[in-house]
């Protein structure tokens, strides 16, 4: 069943993919840190969409769409336009490439990010496995 991106159902589906991935579990076994993924308004989106994901030692502990951004204060905040997120989800934009080209913006403890390139790669690999429907 396809899940609309971005949505609560989609981020939960990604959470399930991560928890089923042995490659992600290995690559992120030392990772501790939660995220806001912000999909900026534009294109089909009238307003920003905030997705929360808590990643802990190779597993996704919880994930959901946030209606009140003040409800969480995650360690990392990654934001980009809808068009660029779509490319990431489709595996067309490598997250490292997206960060270097300034299409993806990331705030948080860079010391931790620097140690986790393989985990980022496996996370994106899981994104591409989520059956996704993109609003026109």
């Amino acid at each position: 069943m396809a899940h609309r991106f971005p949505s609560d159902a989609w981020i939960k589906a990604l959470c399930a993919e991560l928890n089923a991935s042995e490659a992600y579990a290995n690559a992120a076994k030392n990772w501790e840190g939660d995220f806001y993924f912000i999909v900026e308004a534009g294109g089909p989106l009238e307003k920003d969409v905030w997705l929360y994901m808590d990643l802990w030692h190779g597993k996704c502990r919880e994930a959901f769409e946030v209606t009140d951004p003040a409800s969480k204060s995650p360690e990392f905040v990654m934001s980009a336009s809808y068009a660029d997120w779509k490319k990431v989800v489709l595996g067309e934009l490598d997250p490292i490439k997206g960060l270097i080209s300034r299409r993806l913006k990331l705030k948080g403890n860079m010391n931790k990010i620097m140690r986790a390139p393989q985990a980022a790669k496996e996370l994106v690999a899981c994104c591409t496995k989520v059956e996704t429907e993109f609003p026109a």
Partner: protein
Amino acid sequence: MYGYMGRILLVDLTAGRLEDIPLSAEYARQYLGGSGLAARYLYDLVDVHADPLGPANPLIFMTGPLVGTRAPSCGRFEVCARSPLTGFWGEGNAGGFWGPALRFAGYDGIIVQGASERPVYLLVREGRAELRDAAHLWGMDTYAVQQAVQQEAGDSSLKVAAIGLAGEKLSPLAVIVNAHGRTAGRGGMGAVMGSKRLKAIAVGGRQSVPLADADRFHRAAKEALAILQEDISSQMLHLGGTAFYVDIGMLEGDVPSRYYTQGQFEGAERLSGAAMADTILRRARTCFGCAVACGRETRLPRFGVDAADGPEYETIASYGTQLLTDDLEGVAYAGHLCNVYGLDTISAGNTIAFVYYLFEQGVVSAQDLDGLEPHWGDIGPAITLTEWMARRQGIGGLLAQGSRAVAEHFGVPELAVHVAGMEVAMHDPRAYTGMALTYATSPRPGCHMQGDMYMLDSGDELPEWGMTAGARDEQSAEKARMAALRQDWRCVTNALIQCHLVHPPLELVLTMLNTAAGWDMDAGELRVCGERIFNLKRLLNLRWGLTPAHDRLPKLLLQPLAEGGAAGVVPNMELLLPAYYATRGWDPSTGGPTPAKRMELDIP
């Protein structure tokens, strides 16, 4: 003249004569500065038959219009000459503080000709220059001589660029060192300096760069600084140094391992910037006007070194993954020795890695190596060989000539990984196929600093020039076009002179350049400057005997790797090179720009 100090110091070491000449405003607009301007001056001065280590090979130190200003990450200098390693164009680019200090002393550049009978050093202070005896400094290491010159001149604010033992002994792997361990001059610029018996150049002063519109310039510089501080690459580089790339590069198969024959090395994670931060890092170090501070100062207790400079990424790959060792402290010590003796870590490390490879292949024996047995994973023999190379001791005398000389000596010229004699840098063209063209056609052969396609295809784009990232294993005419554009861009950054690691958006670069120099240059004119500089360097190389046959990759880089992120990929040079020639407007029979292209670029 805005944006420039307006003066070049001409030094004739044979006659002991020093003379100021005005900087050509026409050359400045067409070639900007740095290695572009140096190439233009060398184009006038060159004697094509001159021995690279003879008095008739000029050695040119050059700054750029943004050096010594508040433009971030532009505190650099270039040093250029005909290379004794390749016989072709040689240039090196270093940060630190020497470049800005030369501007503060009142000069844009120094052209050194001739050769002194006795060792000398050059002191340039507050607009005045003098040659001083350096017999007592000859034999000193690069760190000691920087300090000794400052003490002798009674001025600790002087910035000193110097050679070490490797330069004195004319190794074509010798570099020039400033700011403790910041080096310039792959291809033997240190040997050219040594051949002139010029031990050091000390510079300093309190002049400032005249700016055409200081208010607008400083607003743009402030904005550029803020962008660079926010930039994720800046933050990664600050935390991990250039070594932060070890992990990322290894994922892509971009980090050469086991002398370019292995696509993956698990020990690399113990050589990474993160590993360094957890173990031997003392502090980050910065260059003039830098928003990043990627420099590493490390502590190496096993070797009794309290403060070493580096290692940076290229050193870690050359002495680490290439030798299959995860001994970070040992790798750092080898890099430290290179700094102290003034050796290029890429060429030195790779020549040594080649010896390890030949030892494994049974081409050389312990007897050939004065009793050493270099086994993969053991940094010990590499450290010993580095010492011997600097001192020209035993087999080190051969290694100090580079891997091509080693290969020829042992009768296996096809096995050494070099382009025209220059050891190939630490980005595998099987991981980023655009690098195959970069290495094969770079004016400084085998060079990653004159067209970093690995950065472009990692997302470091320049949309104003239509330069966009592509698939890293793509082999197409478009890849060739991008490789040429990237080279032109690096000709611009090596002219301005801007750090390669991070840069503000082009619009701000242009604003800073125009408000500094009083110009109205747009992105198109800047692109033409880059293309002009690239082609001028190519023409110099053709004068020195370069032919299309030199545009090649070594055999080992044309064999597929069995594992890792670059597995199975081989650059298709039969496809890429003709496409590259076509996009360049080069004549395939001569390998140079056609008369029409020269006219278009206004190259004499």
